[in-house]
C-alpha cells in the first residue's frame, strides 16, 4: 500500500519541488517535508515526499551489515 522510492531533491519552489529518481525527474509535493534542502534525499510516494531520508541512519545500518559480513569472512 506504500510503493515509495528514494529521490534526490533538485530544486525547491515553495511547497513544490523537483526530485530525481534514477535520472528521471518529477514535480512533487513537499508539504510533508518542509525542512528539506537541495541534494537531500526524500522518500516519494504518489508524487509526494513523505519523509526525509536520514543518511546517517542508513550508513549505520549498512555498517552493521558490513561488520557482519566481515565476521563471516573471518570465520
Amino acid at each position, binding site marked *: *500500500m*506504500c*510503493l515509495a*522510492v528514494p529521490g534526490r531533491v533538485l530544486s525547491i519552489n515553495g511547497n513544490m519541488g523537483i526530485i*530525481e*529518481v*534514477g*535520472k*528521471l*525527474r*518529477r*514535480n512533487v509535493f513537499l508539504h510533508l517535508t518542509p525542512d528539506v534542502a537541495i541534494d537531500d534525499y526524500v522518500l*516519494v*510516494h*504518489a*508524487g509526494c515526499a513523505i519523509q526525509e531520508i536520514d543518511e546517517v541512519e542508513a550508513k549505520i545500518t549498512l555498517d552493521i551489515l558490513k561488520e557482519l559480513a566481515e565476521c563471516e569472512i573471518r570465520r
Partner: protein
Amino acid sequence: MSTITLSHGSGGTQTNKLINDIFFKYFSNDILNQMNDAAQIDIDFKKLAFTTDSFVVNPIFFAGGNIGKLAVCGTVNDLAVSGAKPLYLTSAFIIEEGFSIVNLEIIVKTMAEEGKKSGVKIVAGDTKVVEKGNVDGIYINTSGIGSIYENVNINCANAKSGDVIIVNGTLGDHGMTILCERNNLGFEGNLISDCACLNTLVDCMLDAYDGIHVIRDATRGGVAAVLNEISDFSNVTIALEENLLPIKEEVKGAAEMLGLDPLYIANEGKLCVFVPEAQAEQVLFAMRTHPLGANAAIIGRVTEELGKKVYLNTVVGGKRIVDMPSGILLPRIC
C-alpha cells in the same frame, strides 16, 4: 489545405495530389513508380517469409519515433527474426478526417528513412479517410516479404537445454516511454523508445554463427511474453538472472515509481537470442560491435529441468516465476 478531408480518400484529384505530394515523394522507387495496381516484382529465391502488422499507437508521436517508424520497424523485424532478408513492404493508411497534413508528411518521411536504413522498398499502398471520430488520428498497416536465408533454421521450437539467452540491449524502453507520455505522468528525463530496424543486427549475428536456435523480437508483453512463448513451444525451462538484466536508469526509476516490472514492458528494438553455449561468446561479441547491440548482455539460460516455465533467480538467492503477462500494464501506488 492543412488537414486531411474526406475528399482525400475519395479517389479523385485530391487523392492523387496527396499520393504524389507525400507518399510518392518519399517512398519513390522503381517498382512503386510504375504505378500499377499491384507491385510486380522479380524474385530469385526459393522460400519467402510473409508477414503483416497493424499499428494504432497512442500517442502518435513519442520520444524516439512515431507511428510510421513503428510500422516499418515492426514488420522488418518480424521478417528478420524469421531468418529472412526483408525486401518489400506495403503500407496502408486509415486517416481520420482533420488529421494534420504536416504530421502525415513527417510520418511518411520517417517511414522512408527507416526503409532506407533497413534496405526495404515500399512498393504498394493504400489510403482511406474516415469521418472524424472513427479512428484515433491515423492507423497504419504494413505487410512485408523477405527471402529466407538458406542454411538458417531459426524457430521458436528450437531452444535446447544449455542454450544461453542474449538480449541486444536495455529492456522496457519503448513501453515505459509510451506509458508515461500517454498518461501524462509528468516524468522528465531521457525516456526514449528503442524503436529500430534490427535486420542488419540479425545479419551480423548470423555471420558470427549461422546455427542460432531462436531469435524473437520482444514487443508487447516484453521479454517475459517472448520467453514464455519460447518455453512453451520448445518445451523447456528458462532461468533468468536478476542481476544480469540490462535496464536503463530512467526505466528503472519509472518502474520503481510506478510499480512496474521491466520484464513485462514492451520493446520495439530488442531481440531475445538463444545460442548454444559454445558459440555464445562469439555471438555476443559480434552483437556488441553493432550500434544496436552495444549493450548486448547474457540474461539467462535454458536449464536441464523438465517442464515449461520461466523463472528468475533473484538477488536474494530465491526464485520467482516470470509468467505470461495478462491484461494491460497499469501503474500502481500500492
